[in-house]
């Protein structure tokens, strides 16, 4: 692609953003559960032009064995970007950045999971970025926690995630590519919705202590909204499957099992 142009200004005179959004307005978001038949659980997310798929395999036996944990399952996250997902072609081999983000995502998801129910096993979370237009690590967490629920991994709750940034002195939510690149900073975070505690927090750019506190508050609010979208996506998948099962003339008992399969039982109880 021809190199992106730096916009003249990221904020308009009216206090709106470059793409017309209000400072606290998120991009259009679509999340879908159960999109990959090969996986035990899966989800897709489109957040603005960002497009990501997540698949979960497991819990299952872990190879190589020396990675085995005796008191819980090992959560293995692999975050990969397609070569064509970014303006310049990314090299095919996994970069250090991809490996670091894989680790950061694992840390963000882990507090929500009951991994101690599966000692010595592994739960694999594979994330493929198809198109990257800002906020990929946060969008990946949103999709991955849906895929974990879809795979029936026991969870305290889903994990919503968003980035808050700063452009021309204004705090803004859910950065697009240009805001990420030409803005004054970026604060990606993820929360446990039942306690509002943060499981992911990173920052770059330049912020005062007061700005950071305000940014985190904005992010937590946006995460609570995202959490509602996540639950909706899960319910849609759930009722779609229930309908499909009905079409196949299965009896109603099946629904309970399905609920368990989706890991929703746990999720619903928590809230």
């Amino acid at each position, binding site marked *: *692609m*021809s190199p992106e142009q730096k916009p003249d200004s990221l904020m308009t005179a009216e206090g709106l953003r470059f793409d017309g959004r209000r400072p606290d307005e998120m991009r259009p978001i679509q999340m879908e559960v159960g999109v*990959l*038949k*090969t*996986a035990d659980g*899966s989800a897709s997310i489109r957040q603005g*032009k960002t*497009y990501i*798929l*997540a*698949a979960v*395999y497991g819990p299952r036996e872990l*190879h190589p064995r020396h990675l085995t944990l005796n008191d819980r399952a090992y959560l293995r996250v*692999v975050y*990969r970007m*397609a*070569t*064509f*997902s*970014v*303006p*310049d*072609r990314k090299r*095919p081999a996994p970069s250090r950045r991809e490996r670091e983000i894989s680790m950061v995502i694992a840390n963000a998801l882990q507090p929500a999971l009951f991994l101690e129910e599966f000692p010595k096993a592994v739960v*694999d979370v*594979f*994330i*493929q970025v*198809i*198109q*990257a*237009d800002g906020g990929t690590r946060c969008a990946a967490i949103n999709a991955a926690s849906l895929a974990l629920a879809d795979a029936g991994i026991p969870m305290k709750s889903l994990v919503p995630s968003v980035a808050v940034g700063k452009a021309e002195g204004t705090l803004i939510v859910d950065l697009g590519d240009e805001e990420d690149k030409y803005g004054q900073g970026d604060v990606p975070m993820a929360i446990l919705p039942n306690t509002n505690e943060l499981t992911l927090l990173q920052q770059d750019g330049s912020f005062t202590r007061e700005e950071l506190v305000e940014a985190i508050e904005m992010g937590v609010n946006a995460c609570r909204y995202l959490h509602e979208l996540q639950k909706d996506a899960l319910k849609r998948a759930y009722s779609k499957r229930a309908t499909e099962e009905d079409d196949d003339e299965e009896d109603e008992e099946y629904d309970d099992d399905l609920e368990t399969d989706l890991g929703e039982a746990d999720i619903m109880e928590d809230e």
Partner: protein
Amino acid sequence: MGDFSAEVISHIDRNYIADILSKGERVDGRQFGEYRPLEIEPSPVAAKAEGSAIVRLGGTSVVAGVKVLTGEPYPDTPDEGVVMVTAELAPIASPLFELGPPKEDAIELARVVDRGVRESESVDVHKLCIEPGKKVYMIFCDIYTLEYDGNLIDASSIAANAALLGTKYPEQKLEDGKLVETGKMLELPLKNMAIEHTVSKIGSHLVIDPHLKEEMVQDCRLTMAIDQNDNFTAMQKGGGKGPMSLEMIDNAMGMALESTKEIRELIRESMKDAE
């Protein structure tokens, strides 16, 4: 694909599949020469890639993306651009994924798909020259498997062709040693659109577009790239150690020739919709 899985499939499956083939049927109810439903989603990566397509072939799906870069030509072909096709079994598609270097299967997938495009000279590399010996366009077409239910090679070949067909990129020229955009948008000079067709040999039977279960029990497969003039531009026997007689090879060629036009037409239609 197929060989490693052969370890895990049960003898019951093996007999079952062979049995129904003897009755003239396939596991999913298809005719021996019948392709699975083929769906092409044009340009899913429109904001970042010059061309892209998602292809769903039954339960198998792949995404292909094309990047158009510029660079210096190879010294021995100063007036030719560069085309490179890669294909990768992405972790999300594979329950057997292990974090390591590419396995033989993955290497074969990548090389067979790449050869299908390059040996058939689908893209006219001479038209990818900006300034001989100095600057040419470099076309990278990268394919990722999303769902794996058999016949990755054909799905990948179709996705590559669709993504290349839908590729648009800004024309550039050299001015005072620097590349500048002319403002015009170009399409790729696709002259030949060869599509790969895979026929699987199971016992004495030949089936086209093998399902994953069929791949698991196959003796071998024959993959053929066929261009728009019904010429064969690449061929690879793989997917197992079973030998194949000349008669069977001839039959497989016949089966592939029959389905090639329809698939090529479907690609053209799908990508036209995209505009």
